[in-house]
């Protein structure tokens, strides 16, 4: 299958819920980036995180293998630095080959709530 999707995506509505309720890791509140690479080449992905009151942080480098999906919890990113919980952020995702990007949030602070949306393709 050929590479579907786009090389640049944006997610403006990020905010990892600070608190969690229930057994972890299953019930940990988190923001999740879902990356789909349908093409024959590995995708070299870099993420930039934008904030309200400070300069963007990045790149967060990731690889999505050819013809694979990769789900990345924003909570887990530490390179180059941990994304703060409970703080508004937006993401720009760039890839050297077309990929499809979806965004997901699990919030268990006051009972379980799931929200999901497609990221915005920009090219």
């Amino acid at each position, binding site marked *: 299958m050929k590479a579907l999707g786009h090389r640049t995506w944006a997610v403006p509505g990020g905010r990892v819920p*600070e608190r969690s309720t229930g*057994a*972890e*890791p299953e019930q*940990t509140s988190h923001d999740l980036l879902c990356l789909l690479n349908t093409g024959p080449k590995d995708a070299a992905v870099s993420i930039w995180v934008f904030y309200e009151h400070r300069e963007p*942080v990045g790149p967060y480098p990731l690889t999505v293998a050819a013809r694979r999906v990769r789900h990345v*919890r924003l*909570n*887990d*990113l*530490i*390179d*180059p*630095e*941990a*994304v*703060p*919980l*409970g*703080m508004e952020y937006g993401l720009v995702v760039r890839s050297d080959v077309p990929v499809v990007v979806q965004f997901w949030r699990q919030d268990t602070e006051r009972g379980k709530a799931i929200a999901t949306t497609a990221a915005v393709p920009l090219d």
Partner: protein
Amino acid sequence: MSMAGRSALHPNRGKITNWSGSLTFRPRYLERPRNEEELCAVVRAAARKGLKVRPVAARHSSSPIIATDDVAVSAEHFTGLIEHDTEERWATVGAGTSLEEAGRALREVGLATHNLGDVNVQTVTGAVSTCTHGSGRRLTNLATMLIGGRMVTADGDAIELEHTPDMLHAARGSMGTLGIFTQVKLRLLPRYRLRRREWCTTLRECIDRIEELSEGSRNFDLYWYPRSDRVKLRTLDPPGEGPESIPGARLVLDKEGWSDEVLSRQRVLRFDEMEYAMPIGRGMECFQEVRERIMERHRRTVGWRVLYRFVAADDAYLSTAHGRDTVTISLHQNNTLDFAGYFDDIEPIFRTHGGRPHWAKKHGLGAEELALLYPKWRAFQRVRRRMDPDGLFLSPPMERLLEGP
């Protein structure tokens, strides 16, 4: 021209920054002696001017033990394998040799260190002088390898390290306060291969098996991830030994190599670190308290893992494992983020459990508190004061650490 005919000290305008970037200082003189004679001249010149002298090694330390406003000395020209005896299992290396370089050179002559830490960018002397360690129930820290060497003393003389138990117990973990090493003689093992495996699981799956797992592998440690309660277990064993599987854990890495190739891993991402060493019987209780505190107060800003390791007891006077089998717990924080609030909040928990801080990492203790943690504190001080009666190697941070306010 003889060294007496020109100044032995070289003015310095640049600043020195440690590996993580959290420590910066600007010594008046930065010296890179090419041989013992030059180093002797540096020490004598500093003594004449009333200046303090500190060795700077690989600058991996994030505590201020390397910091000085006066004379910083690099051992970068004292490197390589100097002498060895494979049958008798010892070797002498230059003081500025990195652990990585030493590992390669020793392997070529059939030898190896008994353990290594998570990174190997430090110099051998830096590791030996700060009780740097890896992990393993029956493995002592790297300072215990020291069985001799040469150093330039506060008098400006180059000497062989005295081969007395008192001197060796003092020299292991002495942080450059007895003299400046030019060579270190190490007790070693025949080179050996290890199978490194890494396993992913959750804390609740493995928490009751930590004792059994740590007994079941030559090297064992665990990383706990505060933002998920997940865990990575690392086991290293001679090929054919160690656990076949770990219930509830998924094998994510499996590779075999010579010990120096697989014990350490390359770390590009920079971080600051606090580590305390507790009696082994207090380790898990302390870890659980640390975990609860992080979950409650610090997950917002802390994504880095907590490292839980084992070190066997030894008898070096300032060893963090002196007289007791030990568990170490390390906190990490990205070097671009604030670490002080996090480390300061956790440190009292470590202290409640009888913890001793790693000499080369962040901590808030001074001589008064440290003296109570080390049964041989006075024995060390006797040797140090005999070797350096005027405190040439006691920079202000070292004075606070060893003599108090």
